[in-house]
């Protein structure tokens, strides 16, 4: 009999070394709670990270954990998943780690549909190296390396993921226990590569960069919480809805009370819809934006290997498989 575990069972004895007030604390708490709720086993769960503030995550989760090198976590995780596909492999990365130095690995892990649960902590800044602008920073971001404001246009993680062929893309806010908990559970259950973008508030170098939609007081009007099959409504009284304008080929906000029949329903299997949703700024789309399962890489990789990686042939025979001759 395996005992029922709680969030505490997934917490290590290590002192957490993030800045006081960092959004990572909330994420850690929600993740350990989720692990307990989905019945994860510590011995078959592994957290793999790269470099950055977020990358310290594995030290604080009582499972297997591997803190690797900058940007390469998806590649290490792919090797682990191939060697042992029974392990639940989580990848913890950030906007610099996953989209700058490690962009290539993230792209290919998503394209191949390797069974990795990728958590991208996006705070639009390099925290650990003291505040330089990142590939997700908005134009004009002032930082030690861009004192006059950054000039390059930012990457949208959702566009990146969908463009790479990801079959699961979700979004949540670090402190939103319910919303984050829900997408993490769906990511856990997904067979294949899932990418969850978590808006993470860096209180030291980029405080409140997401406040325009994370502020609880105005959240009802700035957040669009998606549910598969449900109408896309928001506002204190669900008075606003999303409508697809066929002339501008874009989503627009309409009066949902006046035109209830013109409000779109969310369909997480529609990629074109997902592509429109990830570009939306106001309201900000949250929840599972795209989920369309396909066979995972490891399943296809193992398909011709009837015995897995166990050997069925003999090396002695293989050595003698070409033309041989005998000297007496």
């Amino acid at each position, binding site marked *: 009999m395996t005992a029922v575990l709680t969030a505490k069972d997934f917490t290590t004895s290590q002192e957490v070394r993030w800045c006081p007030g960092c959004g990572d604390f909330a994420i850690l708490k929600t993740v350990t709670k989720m692990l307990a709720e989905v019945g994860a086993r510590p011995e078959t769960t592994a957290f793999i990270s790269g470099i950055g503030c977020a990358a310290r995550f594995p030290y604080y989760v009582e499972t297997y954990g*591997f803190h690797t090198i900058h940007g*390469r976590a998806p590649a*290490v995780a792919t*090797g682990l998943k191939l*060697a042992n596909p029974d392990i639940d492999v989580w990848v913890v990365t950030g906007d610099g780690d996953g989209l700058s130095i490690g962009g290539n690995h993230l792209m290919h892990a998503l394209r191949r549909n390797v069974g990795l649960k990728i958590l991208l902590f996006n705070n639009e800044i390099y925290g650990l190296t003291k505040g330089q602008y990142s590939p997700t920073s908005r134009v004009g971001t002032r930082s030690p390396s861009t004192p006059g404001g950054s000039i390059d246009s930012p990457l949208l993680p959702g566009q990146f993921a969908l463009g790479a062929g990801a079959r699961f893309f979700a979004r949540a806010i670090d402190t939103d226990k319910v919303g984050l908990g829900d997408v993490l559970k769906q990511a856990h259950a997904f067979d294949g590569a899932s990418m969850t973008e978590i808006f993470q508030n860096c209180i030291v170098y980029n405080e409140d960069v997401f406040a325009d939609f994370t502020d609880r007081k105005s959240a009802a009007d700035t957040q669009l919480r998606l549910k598969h099959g449900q109408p896309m409504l928001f506002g204190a009284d669900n008075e606003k809805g999303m409508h697809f304008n066929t002339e501008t080929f874009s989503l627009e906000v309409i009066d949902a009370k006046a035109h209830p029949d013109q409000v779109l329903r969310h369909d997480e299997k529609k990629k074109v819809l997902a592509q429109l949703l990830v570009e939306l700024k106001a309201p900000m789309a949250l929840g599972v934006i795209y989920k369309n399962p396909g066979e995972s890489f490891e399943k296809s990789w193992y398909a011709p290997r009837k015995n897995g990686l166990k050997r069925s042939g003999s090396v*002695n025979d*293989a050595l003698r498989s070409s033309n041989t001759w005998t000297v007496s």
Partner: protein
Amino acid sequence: MSDHISMESIVVRLAGDSGDGVQLMGSQFIASTALSGKDFATFPDYPAEIRAPLGTTFGVSAYQMNIGASPISTAGDAPDVLVAFNPAALKVSLPLLESGALIIVNSDSFTARNLTKAGYDKDPRETGALDSFQVVSVDISHLNLEAVKPYGLSKSDGGRCKNFWALGLLMWMFDRDLSPIEDWLSKKFAKKPVVKDANVTALRSGHAFGETAELSEALPRFNISTASMPAGEYRGITGAEALSLGLVAAGELADRPLLFCSYPITPASPLLHRLARLGDLGVGTFQAEDEIAAICAAIGASYGGAIGVTSSSGPGIALKTEAMGLAVNAELPLVIVNSQRGGPSTGLPTKTEQSDLYQAVYGRNADTPIPVIAARSAGDCFYTAIEAVRIALRHMTPVILLSDGYLSNAAEPWLIPDMKDIEPIASNAAPIPDDSRDTQGMAFERNPETQGRPWITPGMPELMHRLGGIEKDIDTGHISYEPENHQRMTDMRAAKVESVANFIPPQEIELGAEEGELLIIGWGSTYGPIFQAVQEILRSHRDVSYTHLRYIQPLPGNLGELAGRFKQVLVPEMNMGQLSSLLRDKLGINPTPFCKVTGLPFLISELTERIHSMLPAVVKAVNEPVAKGKAS
């Protein structure tokens, strides 16, 4: 018909356009050579371009082989027989020939256009340029097309059979049985019977031509001595084949799956291709998105309990450097194969060099020691691969295995081992879970003899721990920035690599006396030419000895003492003296480097000349060196 010319050994070179099928022709001739019980060594020499412009000198592809009584350890210096499919092939090969050599040319290709493309103003057969050679012109293209006419192939498809026509002629010259090649063609073209029949017909026609043509007067036949080799079952093997089989053998010996993660690069890719077909032997292959991903996936595989292996050539190895440091710090087993090529940068991708020795030994940030071993011959790649895995699992460390482009492609006869005779590979077992102890510390309880830690992998209950590239406490395994601890960890990592020396056999003298005037120290693929050169010099009773290194880091414990028994040490290597300076650094000796970086292996004659120059003048007449001649 002329009488057979008896020879101890013979060097044959085939040369043509890269589309002429010269490599295939050579490998088939070698297969028949093997079955006839001769020793051999081959050297494929091909251009970097897949299909270089036809008829040009830079598009010439060649296959050189040395056949005869053992030991044959190089593809030979000067070809005795050259088959040139076009003027460019003749032009490129001519400087290698010594007078008296036999040249067979495909006369159909000696057109004005082809002569110009090769840079000849006039046909060299008519200018006297070939007067010192025996030249036989054969209309190979034309005769082949006539032979395959009944099969209704297009002119270009029919023309593709000409390598088998020429092979048939060669088989006649060497008295070889055609049936193994016909069997091979039947298998290869089982689904294309017309192509098979056309090639078989071309082969037989070339053979019949030798027998019946008037020109057989001019065409000699050879009787090559059979090798006296140790008894047993043999096969022909290239370095890439031996390395791939060695890796799967290591997996079986360790009873672990093997995961080979690689990114395409010349000349390392054949390893990926071969292993991709050995899935039933417990090996999985993964073609990663880049070199860094390849090594990282291999590290992930090792973390997951498989034997992670990655492979590349110099430029790709450079990209993997940071991840090697991760494997060192995480104390995970890993094998990194470097099939060295000419450099720097893109350099000479299809040519050979030994210039990544510094990179292997010193080429990482920080104090990051990694054991380095090198294979000496095609067949030795098998045992070197097993040894690399053995060290990696014993010490929980990455290991670098150095091969090179020459070894990857060179073929030789190989005495096939029985797996039962090879010692199984042990790994550091995971401990039994114990509630009273911290699992983090248990993961880093090292064996004091090897500094190897237990190989605990995800999936094992109650042994969860965290590891990474960040420095950790030597005992508890938790993150540590303590100054004293970093010193102790650095010392531990150095001690781990040094401890490898306690498990390796003492260095021995391969040829010559145990002490004396001159010691030659070799490493890697220079084994063949150095062995042959030293053997030749020893025949004239000169005072020279030879030892060859497999272990580059750490060096065998007795090497300094062994080298000290000689007045002089000479290190021939295909770089600018990298092993020489390593020996100076580690042993405090002062060897003389003998360097060659032309992208080609050493010639035996280059080595004998250099060695002679270091030996004192002979005083006594009885010790006069005998005239240099063919190895007997």
